């Protein structure tokens, strides 16, 4: 089977499946063959279940034959290993959950299955989604398909790398501070974080519940929109999921494109200062020039509290994680220390043995900022700063339709380069974190390559629950570029 199939979009493959040029089984076989060929080097997957995937593909072909094809019928979609799939492992790339098997499906999994998609493999991540490089995985680091010595970004590095390497047609990840958009940028694929509440978090392993959101990785904006249309919507099992209708994104984008709307695009001056790699800056400026050529109005805007976003995030996210990860106590599931002699001992030793360094650091930091006497100075202050960061964005949206920035300050960095300094790693998320604090939708689309051949991502930030406009703005740029035709030389 040719590599062509592995680098096709959902829309291309759906057409070929529909016309019976290929079957779901053939497509799945091509994806399995590609994964076997390259994943020894890329290591995007923690595990994959070939017989299960082929059984799903056969069932998909039968549904199609019976005239019951869903919107993602026969499309293999990879899942980050924090999203439950009944009967499959769910490790969060942690020793704590090394042997855990999901007893039920996440809501997004149910929706993918109901749409005919094939749930494919368990994709690597930074342990419990804490990190920006996948180096914090307990089971090994994923490599960037464009340069195997470099990281794919994180925390959803496996999801981004799998799509970039042709090992999945699309994938789901989760984004708490940039964990979809940053790896998408570093791997040269599209990554979308929906508005907070747009997609149910039921069945997603919790990291920071007021920030976490599931979203797709794909080869095109159109594909990301197709997956979003399937996974979005209210879910009675997630009380923070919103009761808003899910629009037909594809139609909405097409209508906006036809209307020839001239977008007002905001460029936040705070996102183009110190720390921005010159090649990344130049690629983003070139993308902005394309918007200008399209007749968009480009305006400088200010998000004055930007420099406080990383600090506020590492208080709020760690506080929430210290609470969420208290459930890993070694009693009902997860790792239990063999040396535990009494109840307290189970907690102390199981958590010491089960969690990796970054998870321990964040639980400790979160415990500290919530502890008696420090709550007001840290947690409450951070929540107030969060209000100001959110207000900055909403003020900017009185003047502009969307905000355009770099996704990450640098292209993919070398493995080990930032491993010794958690703070240096945290600052990698400086352009993505504010979006989570404000609950906004954001997308990263490829906007070029460095001289060394590393992908660069453009971030478009939208208004709350207006994903259609966000996708249309991103699509307008994508249509004028051909970055997608480049492939990593694996």
């Amino acid at each position, binding site marked *: 089977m040719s590599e062509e199939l592995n680098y096709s979009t959902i829309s291309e493959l759906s057409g070929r499946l529909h016309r019976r040029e290929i079957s779901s089984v053939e497509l799945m076989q091509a994806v399995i063959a590609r994964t076997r060929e390259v994943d020894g080097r890329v290591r995007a997957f923690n595990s994959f279940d070939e017989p299960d995937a082929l059984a799903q593909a056969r069932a998909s072909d039968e549904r199609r034959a019976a005239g019951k094809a869903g919107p993602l019928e026969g499309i293999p979609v990879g899942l980050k290993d924090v999203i439950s799939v009944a009967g499959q492992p769910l490790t969060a790339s942690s020793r704590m959950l090394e042997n855990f*098997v999901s007893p039920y499906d996440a809501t997004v999994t149910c929706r993918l299955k109901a749409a005919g998609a094939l749930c494919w493999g368990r994709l690597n991540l930074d342990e419990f989604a804490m990190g920006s490089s996948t180096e914090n995985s307990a089971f090994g680091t994923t490599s960037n398909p464009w340069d195997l010595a470099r990281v794919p970004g994180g925390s959803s590095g496996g999801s981004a790398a799998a799509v970039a390497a042709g090992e999945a047609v699309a994938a789901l990840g989760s984004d708490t501070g940039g964990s979809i958009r940053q790896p998408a940028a570093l791997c040269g694929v599209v990554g979308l974080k929906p508005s907070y509440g747009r997609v149910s978090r039921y069945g997603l392993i919790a990291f920071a519940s*007021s920030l976490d959101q599931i979203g797709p990785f794909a080869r095109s904006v159109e594909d990301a929109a197709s997956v979003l249309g399937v996974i979005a919507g209210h879910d009675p099992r997630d009380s923070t999921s919103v009761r808003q209708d899910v629009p037909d994104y594809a139609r909405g984008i097409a209508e906006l494109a036809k209307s020839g709307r001239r977008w007002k695009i905001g460029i936040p001056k705070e996102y183009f200062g110190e720390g921005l790699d010159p090649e990344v800056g130049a690629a983003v400026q070139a993308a902005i020039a394309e918007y200008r050529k399209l007749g968009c109005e480009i305006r400088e805007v200010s998000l004055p509290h930007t420099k406080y976003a990383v600090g506020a995030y590492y208080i709020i996210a760690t506080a929430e994680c210290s609470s969420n990860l208290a459930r890993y106590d070694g*009693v009902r*599931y997860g790792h239990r220390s063999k040396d*535990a002699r009494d109840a307290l001992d189970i907690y102390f030793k199981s958590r010491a043995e089960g969690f990796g360094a970054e998870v321990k650091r964040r639980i*400790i930091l979160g*415990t500290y900022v919530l502890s008696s006497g420090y709550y007001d100075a840290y947690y409450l202050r951070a929540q107030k700063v969060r209000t100001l960061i959110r207000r900055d964005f909403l003020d900017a949206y009185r003047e502009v339709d969307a905000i355009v920035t770099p996704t990450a300050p640098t292209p993919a960095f070398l493995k080990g380069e930032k491993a010794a300094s958690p703070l240096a790693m945290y600052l990698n998320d400086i352009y993505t974190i504010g979006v989570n604090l404000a609950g906004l939708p954001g997308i990263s689309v490829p906007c070029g390559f460095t001289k060394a051949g590393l992908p660069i991502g453009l971030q478009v930030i939208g208004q709350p629950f207006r994903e259609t406009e966000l996708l249309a703005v991103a699509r307008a740029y994508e249509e004028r570029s051909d970055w997608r035709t480049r492939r990593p030389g694996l």
Partner: protein
Amino acid sequence: MPPSDFNLDHVANLARINLTAEEKARFGAQLGDVLGYIALLNEVNVEGVEPTAHAFHVVNVWAEDVPEPGLSVEDALRNAPEKRDNMFVVPKVVE
């Protein structure tokens, strides 16, 4: 520099995580860097600013109390580190 009153042993105890001597030395320095960076927030004037717990206003959600099938005992115990007679086994808690 970490705040002088940051006591790693105390916080690790609250978090119920045993740390090795090597971890204590490493985490102490690394968390010191992070806390030093976070101190940047002290320069923000937050007077009169309401805190944000969620980006969007969330309200309590009520559901009808309708029984639904839950996990079977087998599924609920599937990931138990130790089980016996449909129960989780733990070390003796009370003498």
